[in-house]
């Protein structure tokens, strides 16, 4: 027996599958023989072509969930399918805000566990094992399910490369959510979109991040300026997000974004394990920190032991004078 059917929970944003979904569809093709997607919202028909282009042959459409949060209805729809006898072997869920809600709800509905924080998958016959970073990535653990299917994996962004399969338009079938009563009572009243210019943090080729070593919110401007000069995006450690210097959308790390740019520049960041897991996969790392024993230097290709207030402004001047 091998792995037959793999489902990918296909979250959409502005009518398109989010990046991690395309990564998961690509990995799903290497995991099982049939790849299908579960999606929701008003744009499923529009997005189906792209899901097919990455290998989905069928899309279960939960439909428009209105102003409900997706966790309940999407998990409910999947649980209905499973209880009705359509049982996938594996369900891959992206680690997004809504993905975590869906996986958690689904787990409790089906009384099946979830394996979380997955950064790799390996298939051996009818076994699937997952890979996890431990202690900030110093160790790698493998885990597997010992019980009934479907096996639900919550997978972190950037764990796999996305590659189109050139598949045609998938069949779209309705898979409406059941009535969840009080469990589905939360309603979105308003959506706020924060302004963003330049490339997105998790897609940028260069990421320049700042940490508490900047000394104050007003000094984050130099991080943004350096990022802009390098056509990159500006990131942050959690310390300065918690301190309110920059919005959460800039956070890199375990509870923030995973980035894998060509170059990551860490300015005044100590390199706590929770930060490292979010950026260790960068192709090149430069760190600027005044403490030569800062853990960030252990992952840096180039480490500058120095004061960010001296090094970064000079770097900015040098780059400006070249352009």
């Amino acid at each position, binding site marked *: 027996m091998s792995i037959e059917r793999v489902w990918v929970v296909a979250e959409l944003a502005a009518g398109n599958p989010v990046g991690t979904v395309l990564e998961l569809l690509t990995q799903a093709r290497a995991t099982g023989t049939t790849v299908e997607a579960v999606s929701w919202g008003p744009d499923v028909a529009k997005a189906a072509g792209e899901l097919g282009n990455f290998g989905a042959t069928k899309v279960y459409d939960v439909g428009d969930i209105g102003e409900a949060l997706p966790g309940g209805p999407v998990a409910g729809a999947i649980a209905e399918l499973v209880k009705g006898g359509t049982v996938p072997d594996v369900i891959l869920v992206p680690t997004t805000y809504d993905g975590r809600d869906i996986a958690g709800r689904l787990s409790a509905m089906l009384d099946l566990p979830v394996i979380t924080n997955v950064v790799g998958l390996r298939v051996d016959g009818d076994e699937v094992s997952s890979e996890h970073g431990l202690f900030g990535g110093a160790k790698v653990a493998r885990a597997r399910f010992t019980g009934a299917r479907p096996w639900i994996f919550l997978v972190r962004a950037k764990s796999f490369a996305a590659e189109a399969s050139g598949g045609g338009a998938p069949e779209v079938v309705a898979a409406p959510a059941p009535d969840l009563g009080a469990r589905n*009572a939360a309603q979105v009243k*308003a959506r706020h979109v924060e302004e963003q210019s330049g490339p997105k943090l998790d897609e940028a080729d260069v990421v320049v991040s700042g940490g508490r070593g900047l000394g104050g919110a007003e000094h984050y401007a130099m991080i943004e300026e350096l990022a802009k000069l390098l056509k990159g995006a500006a990131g942050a450690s959690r310390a300065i997000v918690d301190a309110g210097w920059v919005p959460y959308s800039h956070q890199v790390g375990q509870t923030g974004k995973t980035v894998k740019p060509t170059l990551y520049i860490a300015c005044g960041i100590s390199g706590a394990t929770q930060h490292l897991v979010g950026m260790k996969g960068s192709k090149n790392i430069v760190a600027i920190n005044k403490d030569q024993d800062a853990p960030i230097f252990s992952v840096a290709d180039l480490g500058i*032991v120095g004061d960010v207030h001296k090094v970064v402004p000079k770097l900015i001047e040098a780059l400006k004078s070249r352009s």
Partner: protein
Amino acid sequence: MNVVVCVKQIPDPAAPQRLDPETKTLVREGKLILDDSDAYGVEMGLQLAEQAGGGEVTLVSMAPGGETSGLRTALAMGAAKAILVSDDALKGSDALATAKVLAKAIERAQPDLVIAATESTDGYTGTMPVQLAELLGLPSVTFAKKVSVGDGAVQVQRQTEAGYDEVQCPLPAVVTVTAGVVEPRYPSFKGIMAAKNKPVDQLTVAELGIDASQVGLAGAGQEVTEVEDAEARSGGQIVVDEGEGFQQVVQFLEQLKLV
């Protein structure tokens, strides 16, 4: 308004962490402390109960060895009492089993609102609170960066990829809070003294009416098969800045053809 706050008691994250060679799960023994992530939940619970003009905060925790150090910290902050579930049968429980245990404990407290952190420092599955909500038959709002309560409902600013959503949810409900949602207070001396005499109701799995085969390693349904050292990223060149350090960065950028 009565609030339950889930608090996890964990080994000091600053101390070196260790895996059990047999089960390959994190060793959680010795003195445990209040997970930093949950200090925000405790503070949030206290503030909301105060604003609602009455009611109290009950802590709920599952921890080995009858551990109460972390609970005492949260009691010293101002929580009224605690329910602790401690049982050898719980060793190795996964998030779903934890949710089953905490759900039974929380049912006893009949709260208007349940607060947990978005994720724990040592486990960080981030799924436990939603599993809990489903088992309790409650709605949930995760990733709260601002919370208020009024008219029998909770209003939450929920973090999103693009910014945040304003979410309204009738009570009772489960809400998970992010770090920084409020500034946790330091326990006062008076608080610390008072905490010593606050009630901690300790329960076993059997007392909660849970079948021991459903929880612990036996009920986990997942196992860690191997742990190896990751491919080490070797540290590179280190330069001490004496005024010209930025030149090294410029050269590095040139090598990468980024400038």
